[in-house]
């Protein structure tokens, strides 16, 4: 029997493709960055697809299988993947399981979720490419460990992607700055845009708190309604992973106070858009968001940088336009 098997393997060996290394991430935002750096060398897949809320995501049996078979696991950290904590720590005992955000960030870059520090660090770091670029070196070394054969290619790509993200950062800044001062308030369904607001000097206001785990309270809705009406904020934004109800009830409340609040386009907060569409990549997601916010608040979008033309194949009318007032 043994001889037979050995012979079989020797026969098949030339036919077997070089088994690519594979890596599993939790969010698409991490996966997309990793993909851009790793190229063909490493297969990268994300557990949470478009429209999935990472705060609430619970691992299924098939997920565990994928996690087990991976060569490395990358997750966000700072309690974003609230329901996966124990699964990830168990896996961490046996293989490289990397919390990319805590590994990459420096303390003074972090924002707290609540004023009173009661929740901990705000995990939505991908909202600011200026911060998110810091995970590139982290991912680079990890990927080089996983696929040492491609070390050089990985290094090359990570340098290029880093420059891409810096260009993106500049572009966003150029766009947001055109929003008139009194309109620089970003009202969304939950507090996901803290870093975005901090980086580009926008005030942010979310109806629900940092995590969508909690049910919005009447006081929360009233707060936002009053603020919006008092300050004459023109637009409020829905998010792809959250039901529109809370936003719609704020709009109705504001209308009652005589303020015409428009629902701006759908923003991608905790997940990217559908894969295959422009907003299905990290850069695309931020472009879509920025265009929606800028236009919704009365600013002008800056011209898309030459460097990033590969990252946005489509026409200017991205899929976010279709999801305007519904």
């Amino acid at each position, binding site marked *: 029997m043994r001889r037979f098997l050995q012979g079989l393997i020797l026969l098949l060996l030339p036919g077997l493709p070089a088994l690519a290394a594979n890596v599993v991430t939790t969010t698409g935002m991490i996966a997309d960055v990793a993909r851009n750096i790793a190229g063909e060398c490493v297969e990268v897949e994300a557990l949470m*697809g*478009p*429209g*999935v*809320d990472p705060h*609430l*995501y*619970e691992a*299924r049996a*098939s997920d565990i299988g994928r996690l087990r078979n991976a060569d490395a696991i990358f997750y966000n950290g700072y309690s974003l993947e609230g329901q996966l904590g124990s699964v990830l720590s168990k896996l961490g005992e046996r293989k490289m399981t990397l919390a990319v955000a805590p590994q990459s960030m420096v303390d003074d870059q972090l924002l707290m979720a609540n004023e009173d520090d009661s929740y901990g660090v705000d995990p939505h770091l991908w909202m600011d490419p200026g911060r998110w670029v810091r995970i590139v070196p982290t991912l680079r070394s990890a990927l080089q460990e996983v696929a040492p054969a491609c070390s050089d290619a990985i290094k090359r790509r990570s340098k290029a992607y880093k420059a891409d993200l810096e260009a993106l950062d500049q572009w966003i800044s150029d766009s947001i700055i055109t929003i008139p001062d009194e309109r620089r308030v970003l009202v969304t369904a939950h507090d996901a845009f803290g870093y975005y607001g901090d980086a580009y000097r926008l005030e942010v206001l979310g109806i629900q*708190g940092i995590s969508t785990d*909690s*049910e*919005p*309270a*009447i*006081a*929360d*809705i*009233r707060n936002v*309604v009053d603020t919006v009406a008092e300050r004459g904020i023109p637009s409020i934004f829905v*998010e*792809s*992973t*959250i*039901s*529109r*109800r*809370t936003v*719609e*009830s704020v709009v*109705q*409340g504001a209308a*009652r*106070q005589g303020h015409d609040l428009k629902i701006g386009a759908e923003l991608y907060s905790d*997940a990217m*858009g*559908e*894969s295959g569409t422009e907003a299905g990549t990290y850069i695309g997601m931020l472009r879509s968001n920025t265009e929606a916010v800028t236009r919704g608040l009365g600013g002008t979008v800056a011209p898309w940088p030459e460097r990033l033309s590969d990252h946005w194949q489509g026409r200017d009318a991205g899929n976010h336009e279709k999801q305007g007032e519904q």
Partner: protein
Amino acid sequence: MLALLGDYTVQNVLLGATLLGVVSGLLGSFAVLRQQSLMGDALSHAALPGVCIGFLITGTRHLGWIMAGALTTSVIAALFVQLVVRYSRIKTDAGLGIALSVSFALGVMLLTWIQGMPNASQGGLDTFLFGQAAATRRQDLWFMGGVTLLAVLLVMGLWKQLKLVTFDPLFAGSIGLPVVRLESILTAMIALAVVVGLQMVGVVLMTAMVIAPAAAARQWVSRLEHMILLSMFMGVISGVVGVLFSATVPHLATGPVVVLAASALVAVSLLLAPGRGMLWSWFALWRERRAIGQRQMLTTLYKLAQHHNDPHYPVERSMLDSFYGVATDPILRRLHERGFIAPASHMRVEGRHWALTDAGYSEAEKVLEQLGMATEESA
């Protein structure tokens, strides 16, 4: 408080909670009287797969489709329970348990499966688990109002039939009423209530809203008409209190507070309702015990008086204490208040004495007569 009541958001939620209270109280009354309270639990859990299926069919979170899905699966679960109970050996409680767990498992499975789908508009389906009362919108109110109106009209139109089928289905059948159909309507109505409450308190807590106002109301009134009205009223009160309370405290979710208010009403009703309340029973029991003690004491004094041939024979208190084995002061005091005994003394150095008065003497005779015990012959 006035500022709260004037606020549009609060008004919306209040109106929603009021409609919920009305429909829960109305339809829950029949469920409770038919001993099908758990049906509310089964049906609300059965709404979850319907919500998911509604989403899967249309690919959007459109309210109408989701509610239609919820109503459909709820009604299917209800009919399933009815059929199973009628035509197999499975009893109602087992049937309800099966329907509840199977449909809820199906719902959760669908939820997680949808989670894995690439459709980007699936976010927020899980809010149906616990509801999102604070985000009540105009459309929600129209929907809830419509369903509530339908329920009220249905109950008013079929009032006699529903009452009789609930009380005595056998007799109802004998006078020609279509009992099975009416029972199905009663059960389906619970599904209606569930659908109304889905967005306010969610699948998990809806069962409490179906049961609590009706159970509380039952304690206070004695006619079905009154029970239903009171039940609706209590449902509304729970809703209003829940909304106002959660509106004043920051970060407090509304749905659970409404349910807590309803539960508090039940607890109060169970304890305090005259006639049926527990405190009243305890009070009546206490009074009865006290009366027995007094009667015993009177008859003892009587027998002693008979034995000593003196209707006003003074008895030393310690003697009574030792006979009864407990302190008799409270009983003696009470008898004194009622005029049946009077203090007496025999010898100064001894302790308190008591003797029967004329009134006490005849009262003791009456008690003994009532008990059918022969009195001693006066020697």
